[in-house]
C-alpha cells in the first residue's frame, strides 16, 4: 500500500484493502511472528473525543507489534484548553511519535492535520466524516463471514451522521456488492456521500423499512440512532423503535445472515440476538487488533 496517511476510505483501492486484510489474516494466524516487528516504535494517540474501542485497539495493536504508545490524554486536560490550534498540537506530537492516530469532532480535521506532518497520520474518526480504519475491520469481518464479492448488504440506522457508514459504503463499491440503505427519511445518506456511490439502482437502494429487504441480505450492518438527532423524546422513540432488531425479527432472515454493529449499541440490537449464530459484532470488535496491526505494520514500513 502506497499511502503516507490514512484519511478517507475513498483513497483505498481494492488492492490496498486486500493487502491490509491479507496481512491481518496472517497476523491473526500467527501473532507471534509480528511480536517484535516494530520494537521501539511509538504511536501518538490524539483523541479529542471519547473513544473506547478505537483507542484501546490501536494501543493493543501497537503493543502487540512490539511498540508503545504516547497518549495526549483527554482534550480537556491538554493544551487545547489554552487555545492551541490542532495544526500546532499535531506538529508537536509528530516530534514524539512515529505515527499518529487522530480523532477530532470536526469534519476534515484529519486531512488538515495530515498537511502539517510528515509521519503517517491515521484518521480515527473526524466528526460525521469518515472512519476508514473501522471500515477495514468491517471489511475483514464481512470477508471472513460472507465474502466481499457477490454480497448483498443492508446498512441500517443513522446513515446521515454515521461516519462508519460513510466510509464503509464507499469502500464496498470496490467490490461486487448490492447495498441497501435502511433508515428513517430524516437520517438518509447525505448528498455528499451519495454523490460518490454509483448511480445504478440495482447496486444501491434506499428503504425506510427493514422487512422490505431482510430476507435477501447476507450481512445486516446496524448503527445506533442517537437521541440528540431528534427534536423531542417521543419522536425519537417512535422512529428509533422501527430500527431495532431482536431474535424474532431475524426469523425472516437467511440462516447465514451476519449481523454487525460498530458498537457501542444501546437498544438497537436486543441481547437475545447475541445468542444466535447471526451475531458477529463482538468478533468484529476483536478483529480491530489484527487489522490495525496490519495497517500500522504497512504504514511503518512492514514490507521493507
Amino acid at each position, binding site marked *: 500500500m502506497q499511502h503516507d496517511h490514512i484519511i478517507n476510505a475513498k483513497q483505498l483501492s481494492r488492492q490496498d484493502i486486500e493487502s491490509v486484510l491479507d496481512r491481518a489474516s496472517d497476523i491473526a494466524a500467527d501473532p507471534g511472528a509480528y511480536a517484535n516487528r516494530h520494537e521501539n516504535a511509538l504511536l501518538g494517540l490524539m483523541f479529542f473525543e471519547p473513544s473506547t474501542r478505537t483507542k484501546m485497539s490501536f494501543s493493543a495493536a501497537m503493543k502487540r507489534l512490539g511498540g508503545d504508545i504516547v497518549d495526549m490524554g483527554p482534550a480537556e486536560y491538554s493544551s487545547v484548553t489554552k487555545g492551541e490550534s490542532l*495544526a500546532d498540537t499535531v506538529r508537536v506530537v509528530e516530534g514524539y511519535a512515529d505515527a499518529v492516530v487522530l480523532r477530532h469532532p*470536526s*469534519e*476534515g480535521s484529519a*486531512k*488538515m492535520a495530515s498537511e502539517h506532518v510528515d509521519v503517517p497520520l491515521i484518521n480515527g474518526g473526524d466528526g460525521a*466524516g469518515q472512519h476508514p480504519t473501522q471500515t477495514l475491520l468491517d471489511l475483514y469481518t464481512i470477508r471472513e463471514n460472507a465474502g466481499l464479492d457477490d454480497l448483498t448488504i443492508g446498512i441500517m440506522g443513522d446513515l446521515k451522521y454515521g461516519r462508519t457508514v460513510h466510509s464503509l459504503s464507499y469502500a464496498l463499491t470496490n467490490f461486487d456488492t448490492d447495498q441497501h440503505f435502511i433508515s428513517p427519511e430524516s437520517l438518509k445518506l447525505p448528498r*455528499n456521500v451519495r454523490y460518490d456511490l454509483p448511480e445504478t439502482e440495482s447496486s444501491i437502494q434506499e428503504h425506510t423499512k427493514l422487512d422490505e429487504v431482510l430476507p435477501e441480505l447476507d450481512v445486516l450492518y446496524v448503527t445506533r440512532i442517537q437521541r440528540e438527532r431528534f427534536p423531542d423524546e417521543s419522536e425519537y422513540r417512535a422512529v428509533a423503535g422501527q430500527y431495532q432488531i431482536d431474535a424474532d425479527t431475524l426469523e425472516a432472515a437467511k440462516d447465514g445472515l451476519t449481523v454487525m454493529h460498530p458498537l457501542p449499541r444501546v437498544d438497537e440490537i436486543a441481547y437475545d440476538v447475541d445468542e444466535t449464530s447471526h451475531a458477529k459484532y463482538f468478533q468484529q470488535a476483536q478483529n480491530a487488533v489484527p487489522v490495525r496491526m496490519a495497517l500500522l505494520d504497512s504504514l511503518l514500513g512492514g514490507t521493507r
Partner: protein
Amino acid sequence: MTDDQALRVSKIESGTVIDHITGGQALNVLAILGIDGTAGEVVSIGMNVPSDRLGQKDVVKVENRELSQSELDVLSLVAPAATVNIIRDYDVVDKHLVERPTEVSGILQCPNHNCITSEDEPVDSRFEVLDGGVRCEYCDTIIREDLAAHILA
C-alpha cells in the same frame, strides 16, 4: 464593444476589462477578486447593460491592474461567459475567455459549520470544481446553488 456601452462606460488607458459577466454578478466578481476599492484602484462597473449574447450583462473595468489568468478563472463560477481584455495604451493587447478551474482555494466559505476550515486553524478553504457545483476538499460538502452567497468576505 457597441457604441451604446461605450457611452455608458468610457475606455480605459490600461488595466483589465471583464466583459460578458452574467447580469447582476459584477459585485460578486469584484468580491472574488478581492477588489473593494480600499487599495485605491479606479474601478468602473456597468450592471445589466443590454447584450446581444446574454440579454443583459455586467462589465467591470479595473484600471492600472492586469489580472492574471488564474485570478480570473475563478470568476467562471459566477460568470461562466465572461471575457477578459487586457488593455495597454487604450489597445486590447490580450483577450481571452475564463476557463473553469479544477480547484478554487481561499475564495469560498464552506457552509458546513462543523468543517475544519470553519475553525480558527491555519487552513484556506479549498473546493474541487464539479459539473454544476463545487465540493469542499476537507469535509466533502457540496454546494450546487448560489455559489456567490458563499464568497468569503
